[in-house]
């Protein structure tokens, strides 16, 4: 029976069907793996503030990493040290949270598990609208502790609503994402430094007058940065250092605030200020203004636009 012969015409037909059969066989072989696919996962962790009374006087450090999803940071309910909620697809990311009592540090992360690395290059697993919907991280932080926030957002969307918190420092790095940083109410602590690093992304920082940041460091590469100081009077002078590469920065400042930009511009521009002296641009009211905002910038193929808004 094995030696049954078939006409050449039938052989060629068999070749054609072989490809289909091969695909069907492969699909069938892969079916156990597909059957083992898991559903959505949720992680909820919270801790009452009274459990850490001994550490009440120290600053709480927050290390936050979010991949391929949405993140929302906001103030927690009274009496809560932290409240972390993650809803995600384990086929895309894995969520993890851990509070280090000794270091008084909260670690929250979602690590990407999709896609492949070929010769060091990440292929596949590109985030889309579905991944943004399927991977949502919400982190609520205490109102009555100084918080030092370090955040890294990759390929996602984020809203940091830090109004009402006592943020003593913040370092925000994001890549390939859209992020909004907001201080809708006054920061309850003096922020020694606000570091913003944006790569191939858009960062919109609003109500910055409420941030009470003594210094702002911004690095923008192939993206956009929007710094809005228009909502409240500045409590103190502000120094901003910017490194701009293939990007645009918009700074919205009340008319009453004096503005000076000292910039090394290579293929770029500074706009919105009338006076210029070599590498220095100043506003008309620089000498007379009671509050001053100084920008020191290095610009390569980009620009800074100073936009005047009505005084609050």
């Amino acid at each position, binding site marked *: *029976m*094995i*030696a*049954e012969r*078939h006409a050449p015409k*039938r*052989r060629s037909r*068999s*070749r054609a*069907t*072989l490809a*289909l*059969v*091969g*695909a*069907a*066989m*492969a699909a*069938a*072989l*892969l*079916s*156990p793996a597909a059957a*083992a696919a*898991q*559903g959505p*996962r*949720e*992680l*909820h*962790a*919270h*801790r*009452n503030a009274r*459990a850490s009374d001994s550490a009440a006087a120290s600053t709480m450090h927050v290390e936050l990493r979010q991949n391929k999803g949405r993140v929302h940071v906001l103030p927690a309910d009274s009496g809560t040290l932290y409240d972390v909620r993650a809803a995600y697809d*384990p086929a895309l990311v*894995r*969520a*993890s*949270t*851990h*509070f280090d009592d000794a270091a008084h540090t909260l670690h929250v992360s979602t*690590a990407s598990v999709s896609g*492949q690395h*070929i*010769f060091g290059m990440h*292929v*596949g697993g590109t985030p889309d609208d579905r991944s943004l919907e399927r991977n949502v991280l919400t982190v609520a932080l205490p109102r009555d502790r100084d918080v030092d926030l370090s955040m890294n957002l990759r390929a996602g969307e984020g809203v940091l609503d830090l109004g009402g918190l006592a943020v003593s420092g913040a370092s925000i790095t994001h890549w390939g994402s859209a992020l909004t940083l907001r201080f809708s109410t006054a920061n309850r602590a003096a922020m020694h430094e606000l570091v913003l690093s944006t790569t191939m992304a858009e960062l919109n920082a609003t109500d910055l007058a409420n941030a009470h940041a003594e210094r702002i460091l911004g690095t923008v590469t192939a993206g956009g940065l929007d710094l809005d100081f228009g909502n409240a009077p500045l409590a103190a002078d502000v120094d901003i250092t910017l490194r701009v590469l293939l990007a645009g920065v918009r700074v919205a400042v009340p008319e009453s605030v004096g503005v000076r930009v000292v910039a090394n511009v290579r293929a770029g521009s500074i706009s919105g200020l009338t006076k210029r002296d070599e590498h220095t641009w100043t506003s008309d009211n620089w000498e007379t203004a009671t509050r001053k905002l100084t920008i020191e910038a290095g610009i390569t193929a980009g620009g800074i636009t100073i936009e005047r808004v009505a005084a609050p």
Partner: protein
Amino acid sequence: MRNAILAVAAVALLVTAHPARAQSVLSAAQRDSVQQWVNELAPELAGAPLPLDAATTGARSIPAGSTVSGDVLTVHGTVDVAGRVEGSVAAIDGNVILRASAVVIGSALAVGGTVVDSGASVGGEVRSVHASRPGILALLNQPTHVRPSTAHAIGLALAWFAILGVIGFAVLLLAPANLEAVAEVISRHFGRSFLIGVVGQILALPALVLLIVALAITLIGIVVIPLAVLAFMLGAAGALALGFVAMAYANGNAIGSARTGGSVLVRRGGILLTGLAIYAGIWLLAGAFTWAGVVGVLLRALASIVTWVAVTVGLGATISSRAGTRRDAASPVRELEEPTLMAEWQTPTPVSGVAAARRPTPAPGGARRS
């Protein structure tokens, strides 16, 4: 009567004195299954204490006024805490209910469930992880005298038998010539097919790397690398599957199980199922002895070796016959049989003229092939 009252009182005393010890302890197999799930959830459970050795199964209740010294961990059940726990409380595949009167010195954790906090005092973190738990519920619901891993192994063997049966019948229906050609190569060149299969397995990864490097040279090639990798993996999976099915077909044919009656498809199907049943039988045997410790391990090792040899030989035959499309790879002897058979009844007619040759009449039941 007095004895009965004393007995009831003693039982009541025991229950109230040890409110957390009224459950059964996890069996080793159950603990392994739970541990596997916990390991899978390692990121979500980072820093959470889960001493599985102390775990019990079923619901647990710690009533108000009672105290448990140490951790409370239960599997497949709800923990209802109204009293004091001088450690952490955890439920795997269950909820943790913390009443307002509850005091937990450590943390509260629910895996595959929710921590419901009604205002309890919890010293540590309260964490809930909602995650699907494949198979764990079925395993825990089985009677304790049945080893879940044995049932799992048997079920796995049957499932693969069914899958390969479907694949085999698909090949029989759509590409019977290819299947028979590969099977014929296996029958005639077993050793050569095995060697080719081993070489094919060794060279598979370098070939994939070479393909990627070749594509990476050009800009367009870089774009199609993911597709090429997918096509390569599908092709490899197809070759392995076709080879194994052909090997089973050859085995079934070798033990002469073909029925004489029925259609060609039915006869071929019988051969294929017989061959597949050989391998399924080996794995079923190994699975049935999963409980038997070393014997089970040895049987599984034997089944793995037999299956690997079968897959390797099948792969080698698939490669050498180009998935059954190269007919001369099977047997040049077979090709030579046809002229001989044709010559049996042909008599050359001289040009000078001879009376027409007489065609020989085949003897009944003779060796002529139909």
